[in-house]
């Protein structure tokens, strides 16, 4: 009997049935569905320019979503990313506008982002403060600091050597989108093929089992928060370069978009389950919804209403498909 089972499984692995494909890649089919809807509703939807715009607009949420995926995989949450984006954006532009070499300013800013992430991780692991609360506190404080840097004023007068980061390369391909895609590929490889990545899944799947297997759980959880903080700083730098202005209000409420995209992408809030590929598609689906509304010329109030409805519908559909045999 065992032999037969093995044969069946091997056959399944080589020639998966349509049902198996649908179940495994259901998110991708939802994604395709949105592309079809978009192209039916607007001629411009599939134009090269629109696709590039879409990637540009997705890239900030996209970059942060990578870090958030790491944090959620270890059953954490990081509410501070929007505020950290604003604070690091202010810090970078403040240093650069006062004459510092942009490369040095960027390096310092990334370290600050990592440090803020470390504080989140340290407080939640060492003092057993729930990540929700620790990062909520960070969110409030970091936002306050962002305003304090300039008393709430935006920072202009940024050199072109810095704002070029927010521009295009090879003609009209947005650099931020390229950075997002490269970071996504790196994260996929890290999570799938490195010992670090596999341990992340173990820690998120069952922290106690992981600990008793000799994995220093707190260290790995803290690393995930550091990654999240660093990537929030990357997004902060890129967003201020793209806007050519440092703004203390940047990224307000962004954390919720990011969390929604990650969850839409199939990562479980309980940890241990999910993927960067899913997150990537989750981010794209959210941007496409906004994009379709913009192309149709509907007001942003409608956008908000429908965004909520569509996220819930997509998740229900996802659940329905993956529970169906």
């Amino acid at each position, binding site marked *: 009997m065992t032999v037969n089972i093995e044969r069946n499984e091997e056959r399944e692995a080589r020639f998966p049935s349509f049902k198996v494909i649908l179940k495994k890649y259901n998110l991708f089919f939802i994604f395709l569905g949105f592309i079809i809807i978009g192209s039916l509703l607007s001629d411009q939807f599939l134009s090269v320019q629109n696709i590039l715009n879409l990637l540009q607009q997705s890239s900030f949420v996209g970059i942060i979503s990578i870090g958030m995926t790491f944090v959620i995989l270890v059953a954490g949450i990081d509410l501070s990313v929007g505020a950290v984006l604003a604070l690091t954006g202010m810090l970078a532009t403040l240093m650069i506008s006062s004459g510092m070499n942009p490369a040095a300013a960027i390096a310092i800013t990334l370290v600050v982002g990592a440090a803020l992430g470390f504080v989140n991780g340290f407080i939640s692991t060492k003092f057993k403060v729930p990540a929700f609360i620790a990062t909520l506190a960070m969110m409030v404080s970091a936002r306050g600091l962002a305003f304090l840097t300039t008393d709430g004023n935006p920072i202009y007068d940024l050199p072109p050597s810095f704002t070029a980061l927010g521009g295009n390369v090879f003609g009209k391909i947005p650099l931020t989108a390229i950075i997002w895609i490269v970071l996504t590929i790196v994260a996929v490889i890290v999570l799938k093929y490195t010992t670090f990545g596999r341990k992340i899944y173990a820690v998120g799947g069952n922290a106690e089992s992981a600990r*008793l297997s000799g994995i220093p759980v707190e260290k790995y959880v803290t690393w995930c928060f550091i990654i999240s903080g660093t990537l929030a700083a990357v997004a902060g730098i890129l967003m201020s370069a793209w806007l050519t202005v440092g703004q203390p209000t940047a990224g307000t409420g962004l954390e919720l978009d990011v969390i929604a995209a990650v969850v839409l992408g199939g990562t479980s809030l309980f940890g241990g389950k999910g993927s960067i590929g899913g997150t990537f598609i989750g981010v794209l689906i959210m941007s496409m919804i906004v994009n379709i509304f913009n192309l149709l010329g509907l007001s942003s109030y409608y956008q908000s209403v429908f965004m909520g409805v569509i996220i819930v519908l997509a998740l229900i559909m996802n659940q329905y498909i993956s529970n169906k045999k």
Partner: protein
Amino acid sequence: MSNILEMKQVSKSFPGVKALQKVDFSLEKGEVHCLIGANGAGKSTLMKILAGVYTKDEGEILLEGKSVAIKTPSDSKELGISTIYQELSLVEELTLAENIYLGNYLNPNGGFIKWKQLNEEAKKIFSLLGLSIAPSLQTSSASMGLKQMTEIAKAIASDCKIIVMDEPSTALSGDEVEKLYEVIRLLKGKGYTIVYISHKLEELYAVGDRVTVLRNGEWVITDRLENISQPELIQHITGRKIEKKEKVHHTTHREEFLDVKNFSNKKIHDVSFSVKKGEIVGLYGLVGSGRTELLRAIFGADPIDSGEIYIDGSKKNISSPQKAVDHGMGLVPENRKTEGAILDLSISENAFLPSLRAYSNRSFVKRKQMKAVMQEMIEKLNIKTSSKEVPMRNLSGGNQQKVIISKWLIHQSRLLLFDEPTQGIDIGAKDEIYTIMKELSEDGKSILMATSEIEELLAVCDRVLIMFNGRLIKEFSTPANYKSEIMNIAVSG
């Protein structure tokens, strides 16, 4: 006698596995019917179909001669079938009475709770079971035995005719098990029909009228227990003969591997002992005597207040499981599901958790090499699985335990700490685990095993340490000759 329930030709498949194949199962009114089989034999699946947790693919269920459809747990309840799962499902923060009447609080229309009536009704049910217990006790402060009784009371309160008990004795002490038998006999006398699932053969003979054996998802035999001897039963369960092995004592143990000196923390007091290379040492004692706590302290999972630990002659500071693993220790914890396994990861990922560094190249994992090693482990430990990538969740308990043991074999640990290694595991797999332990010891690896099963202790261990109230009180170096002394001392201190 008339059959109250008949399950005919029931089949059920899960992706890749035929869990049940045309199984027949019937219950006579007022009998205690034991259901037994190895892990993965299909007994849980069969009972979950009866409980409406799973739906059958094929077959028919007749209740008092009439065909019934059980699609959901509430269908099952309405038909008068009540299931008590191994992991009890009581709400710890509520009182016993509230748990018994959870769902409607004797007041189907909602509104205020009639506490007095609730407690009186609960008390009536308890006294029906021959128990005098205050139903207003908060559940979290009740003993395991009392919780089990509350589950039974809950079943009776739901007006059921058939009660299914899934390994009810697992967490109970000796006295509590006796009480459970009494209650079962009482219920039988009152006309209730009971399905009793257990791995422990003595229990079947103590309470059962008939027994049904399943193996690999197929029906093997149904017969009255008095017609079937224990060895015959074992043969039906495993499909092969198991000879009882007596431990052969090696007296050639060489130098010490582990030396624990004056270990103390909140749960253990001034414990000193050593384990030699190739020696299997048993830790015996009542639940709460500090066995688990001692293992956890040695492994660095719980902090110690004072004490020293020497490995291979040199003093080590083991302040975390990570350090313990680095120094060649491995722990097979008591709770497989919550401490041993990561259920959503594949068996291969579970098995390589402690050894990822060794199986990686500049932190990239070496998948090919891991595959080969895992295949070796699957064959060596006889792990029953359709592939290396199956999630741990899909394996039966015994096979999960083997995967957890394989973690430390792959890591080439030199000292294995086993905490109740065969709890809830069927006889066939148990025997295989003992064989693995013996092979490890012949290889020169040391084993420290905490257990509450005296037979296991005598069959496997070279030496036995007895714990009582967190202290090590006695040592026996030829345990087989001192069975009754060991049991007495463990109880009385």
